[in-house]
């Protein structure tokens, strides 16, 4: 009855999964480069951001074409409008991975003032959130989407921890202030990535239930 439309929706699904795995990889690369002070790898993460931006355009075009040609309703409309909102959050995550990499490059020739354990922990948690939100989208899994939203508290707590540690370091030794500020930025980017993964999950919930958290 509607083979072409279904094929287009399945393409949209595939492209979103592709974009999800691109941003997942970009966070992974950015953190690895940061921890190992690897400038080449950091440059990779920055370049990958351009790819992510292109992928956003591709999905955006596809969504607009679907709106124009199919005038979708019901779950088709929810899926397509969610996709349009999700890719904005996904693109931002790519930006933040790139931002982190720029700091990595700036700090490359100085030893870190502290171990990056909590920042690494934040990276790990946000990756779990991101993968969870994409899986929730693919499997139309409400429970998984809600788990992602809950996990954001863990990331927020870690951010507070990192912030306190860095403030303490600045108190003890003002010379460390500049790097501490940079590392605080890194932590803030991670915290924002968690927020974007939360947003993605909220749109996944909207596409399943027709209700968005912000509407309540």
């Amino acid at each position: 009855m509607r083979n072409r439309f279904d094929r287009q929706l399945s393409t949209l699904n595939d492209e979103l999964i592709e974009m999800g795995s691109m941003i997942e990889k970009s966070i992974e690369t950015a953190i690895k480069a940061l921890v190992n002070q690897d400038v080449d790898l950091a440059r990779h993460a920055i370049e990958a951001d351009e790819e992510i931006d292109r992928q956003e355009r591709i999905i955006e075009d596809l969504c607009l074409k679907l709106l124009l040609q199919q005038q979708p309703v019901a779950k088709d409309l929810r899926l397509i409008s969610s996709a349009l909102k999700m890719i904005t959050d996904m693109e931002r995550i790519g930006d933040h991975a790139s931002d982190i990499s720029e700091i990595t490059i700036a700090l490359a020739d100085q030893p870190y003032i502290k171990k990056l354990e909590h920042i690494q922990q934040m990276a790990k948690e946000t990756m779990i959130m991101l993968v969870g939100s994409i899986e929730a989208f693919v499997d139309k899994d409400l429970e998984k989407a809600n788990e992602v939203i809950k996990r954001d508290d863990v990331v927020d707590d870690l951010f507070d921890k990192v912030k306190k540690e860095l403030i303490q370091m600045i108190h003890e030794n003002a010379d460390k202030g500049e790097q501490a500020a940079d590392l605080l930025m890194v932590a803030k980017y991670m915290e924002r990535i968690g927020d974007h993964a939360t947003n993605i999950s909220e749109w996944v919930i909207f596409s399943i239930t027709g209700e968005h958290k912000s509407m309540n």
Partner: protein
Amino acid sequence: METTKIHVTNMNLHYGDFHALKNINIDIPENQICAMIGPSGCGKSTFLKSINRMNDLVEGCKIDGQMQLRGENGFEDIYGDMDVNHLRKRVGMVFQQPNPFPMSIYDNIAYGPRTHGIKNRHKLDAIVEKALKQAAIWEEVKDRLNKSALGLSGGQQQRLCIARALAVEPEVILMDEPTSALDPISTSRIEDLAIELKKEYTIVMVTHNMQQATRISDKTAFFLLGELIEYGDTEQLFSMPKQKKTEDYITGRFG
């Protein structure tokens, strides 16, 4: 707060052995546009026609249950002792194909009021002008009221037919796919007109154009195989339908 204009309970309609409408329960609110959607043969047009007893003319048509129209004296049974001519004055109808009478524009509009006994020329002039203005066609025809209505374009003819329905001052206007024979510009004029008219009238509209239903209707009723599957706020029905059958139909998975 919504006031129910048409109240239907446990309504069944048979054409001979064929059970065309099955246990329909619906409350159609006043001063709103209610869209009826569903695949061909689902019963939506049959339901529409039963509101002003157009099915009475169909041989073997049998209706049971309750259909009521709310007026100044509360609810009255449409299939009770109400005079059919009086009912059709209160509930007008506009069809898919514009069907102006082969007479002048003026006489088309004056036809109804004359049937109901209005002979005074000044009165008729006022009614004709008012109806044509309400149907947003006055400016286009005011200088040729005595010309044949058949010389108008399709879109103009349809607005003329709406004006003709309005001339007898009905309470409800039934529209059976009123724009399916019209171009997009005429369609959009009729849609704007319907939205304007709902301030004073209750409009029930059968449409195959679901985008049209989403654009102009407040409520939507989805019929399938003689059953009313889902009825609710249009926005809700088209974004988050409650029934899987509705979802499947509006997304084009069957029908």
